[in-house]
């Protein structure tokens, strides 16, 4: 439990990190550093995106699987690390 907290704190302290969200496989946000409405929005949208991406990768090659997903936009970058049951989402503003 403490290690989880430590990990999250370490990530949060990195430069440019705007927020962290952990969601489970159903799309329910477990932990978040953002406010509730943003969390819910990110959770809902990104959950669908990861599902779609994962199924795409698996469809193209059944042996393959999704390891990491980065969505870079004009204002920031959303990084999603998927696991079997949980997703770790970090929103970072890459230093320009």
């Amino acid at each position, binding site marked *: *439990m403490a290690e989880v907290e430590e990990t999250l704190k*370490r990530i949060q302290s*990195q430069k440019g990190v705007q927020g962290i969200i952990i969601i489970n496989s159903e799309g329910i946000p477990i932990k978040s550093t953002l406010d509730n409405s943003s969390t819910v929005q990110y959770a809902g949208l990104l*959950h669908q995106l990861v599902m779609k991406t994962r199924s795409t990768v698996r469809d193209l090659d059944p042996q393959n699987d999704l390891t990491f997903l980065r969505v870079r936009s004009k204002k920031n970058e959303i990084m999603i690390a998927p696991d079997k049951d949980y997703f770790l989402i970090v929103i970072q503003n890459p230093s320009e």
Partner: protein
Amino acid sequence: MEIVYEYVKKRSEFGRPCNFSDRASDLHLDIQPDAELAACFFSLDSRDVGMQCAADMSENEVNTVRIESESRGINHTEGGWPNNVNPQEIEHTMRFRKKVEKDENYIKAILKLGIQMEHSIKQNNAIDIYQEYFGEGEEEEEEMADAKEQPAAKTINVFRDPNEVKRTASSLSWHPDGNHKLAVAYSSLEFQRASKSMNFDSYIWDIENRNWPDLTLKPVSPLVSLEYNPKDSHILLGGSYNGQIAYWDTRKGGQPVEMSAIEHSHRDPAYKVIWLQSKTGTDAFSTSTDGQVLWWDIRNMNEPTERLVLDPSKKENLDNALTAVCLEFETTMPTKFMVGTEQGLVISCNRKAKTPAEKIVCTYSSHQGPIYALQRNPFFPKYFLTVADWTARIWSEDIKESSIMSTTFDMTYLMDGCWSPVRPAVFFTAKKDGTVDVWDFLFKQNDPTLTVKVCDEALCSLRVQSNGRLLACGSHVGTATLLEISPGLYTLQRNEKALANEMFERETRREKILEGRLREMRLKERSRSEPGKEEEAQDLEGEESPEELIARAEKDFFQIVEAEMKKWKNETEKQKGKDVSEQKKC
């Protein structure tokens, strides 16, 4: 009738090896022709039957039904919570979350993912992995690519008239800000061709949605021209087929807010309405083929604020008036405006003149047919474009005799045209055979830089969006097509303004010089016939009536013919003489 033949084989002979031998054929059954049946048929002696040793094929056309698509968004509210947890109750959700956090799997997963994530984050912080190296080189390449690129136009969208009876898209107007809406006026411009079931509506289309119009305007009579108010993008002014002017407010729906009183409106379709520059933003003026130009203030549509009759003899006589088809007004020159007439004249007028007689300043004549489009160059207002008959001409305000530049005579009638708002030497024309020509006068003057065939019917109206990239054209059957032109035609090149200015000035000078020469020649002629001037005066006094003119023409003609005949006779005699002399020689 059943025909049966029995083959018999003994059971004991089954399975025996076969021994084949020849024998004569045996007739088992002979069916004779039945004469009665023959009476039911008659013979066709010769038949023409095609025989082919190939498979039978048939040709079919298939076209998919046009799908109507609509854009909708989905909103994800909270979800995914298991049955026993009520998402509204904070306690439940907190309890659920705490439970998950204690789960072993959770801890392991997060630790693993955390390592991955940290790596990526540090990567991002260390270097911008999407940074463009070789940025400058790319820019140069892009420029080169543009220069070599062929000018092209692509159809983006087509808006069809949703009614059964198709009407002409007679006028188009782009929304002043944002350019995402297009107002199209539909009417039937052919004389008395409008059927009873024709719909009077005009539509405002959103350029993304081509399945149904954004707003329907319902006038009393079909609209011939339609313009957005450049100051207030909710107000539109329309000139209708019966001569009335009406204005709409898009916030108030499809019915006109107010219409002009019919006694004071035009007596012919109001072919063009333009908004004027004023403090209140409510002034407009309109013109029609009844020979009048009327000024309106839309707050009071009962009668026009001012009226001008386009009578070249300056006597305000409606019968003599020239019939106008288009108007031009430039906000940088608010006191002047121009009218294009059906007779092929362009009249330049001064708004601030005291007496109506002084309103008409000068006329430019060179076209053979009605002037369908008239527009000043947005960069150099001294030069203006007229589109009429088979040519498009560029004029300079100072030179009244002729245009300074002109396109070559085209095979089809030109119906509409306009300058590009971003490039000073580029303009577009729409033709009766359904093509749009893009002319770049700095590049090539003999031919259009680009010709695009938009549709099979005649194109009746053309309008460029203010960013110069999109072009909307309306056709005879009411189809409005949106074209996007290639970047080469809407990006301003480096020296273009200066070059265009030079070109126009050069042509103006040339015309002036030509004019000067013409005048000189005329003066010389006049001075030559100076001694005979008195006789001339006498002759002129007895100004010939048409019959006398005809008689004189006949006399001249016969004189010429007789002179030719005499010459011919003399020649043949000479020839004969030569032959005789030759014979004699021999």
